[in-house]
């Protein structure tokens, strides 16, 4: 039993952005152009976006889409993220730069939880955050951890995510959970959204 409901969710995979089951953006471009076009689609001014690594850009776009639906963003919104490639893409880029001149701006993204900082800055969040490295998408872990945060009054909402980037392949599933006394999120429901094909 948990006390959570899913307010909104977003899925970003294979050139598509799906929000609550509806494809809202699609592009067949490579990852660099896809991220640029998706940011343009958001229609916001945020120059820092262009300095982020790709993992942070994906997390930023996904959270921006879901948070846009919120009338008021609570600073007590926690972040519970996970993936299986950590920050490998940025680690490799940084390693490459070491051969000549180590790049400070690449170095700052050599941890997966940097994206949590970027999202917190964007929305003024001051709550708990955690980034798990798991073999594969683990709905139970994200649900149980979120429920615990809400039950213990550490947060009143939780942004949960599987945010994975491996080479140029991205797989993002992010949802906003809040307390509900009527509904209950099940692992099967979350898994079903994650596994579905969206055309």
């Amino acid at each position, binding site marked *: 039993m948990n006390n959570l409901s899913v307010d909104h969710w977003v899925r970003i995979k294979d050139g598509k952005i799906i929000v609550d089951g509806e494809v809202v953006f699609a592009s067949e471009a490579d990852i660099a152009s896809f991220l640029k076009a998706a940011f343009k689609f958001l229609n916001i001014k945020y*120059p820092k*976006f*262009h*300095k982020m690594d790709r993992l942070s850009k994906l997390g930023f776009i996904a959270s921006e889409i879901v948070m846009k639906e919120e009338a008021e963003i609570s600073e007590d919104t926690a972040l519970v993220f996970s993936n299986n490639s950590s920050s490998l893409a940025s680690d490799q880029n940084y390693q490459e730069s070491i051969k000549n*001149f*180590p*790049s*400070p*701006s690449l170095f*700052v993204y050599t941890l997966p939880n940097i994206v949590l900082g970027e999202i917190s800055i964007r929305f003024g969040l001051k709550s708990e955050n955690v980034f798990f490295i798991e073999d594969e998408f683990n709905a139970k872990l994200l649900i149980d951890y979120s429920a615990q945060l809400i039950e213990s009054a550490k947060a009143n909402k939780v942004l949960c995510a599987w945010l994975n980037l491996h080479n140029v392949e991205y797989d993002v599933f992010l949802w906003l959970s809040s307390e509900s006394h009527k509904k209950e999120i099940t692992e099967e429901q979350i898994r079903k959204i994650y596994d579905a094909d969206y055309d």
Partner: protein
Amino acid sequence: MPIMTDLHTELKASIIEQLNLEDMEVSDIENDEPLFGDGLGLDSIDALELIVLLEKDYGIKLTDPKKGREIFESINKMADFIEANRTK
């Protein structure tokens, strides 16, 4: 009439590329405009990138990071410093 040398233009182009200042053109940066704070809005990580840029492109090793505050005040200041200290 502002003095615009090749070095000024080269610096602006390098800064735009190195710091990923998307949607910004060389002509958008004024020679005397503050690079940090209200001007271009660069941050502390950008300052480190500028230190790397000085060494990589002009062979200048900045041993005292505090000097950066003065040198990176504007494109004019950077260009003057590079002209006086460049080794390549």
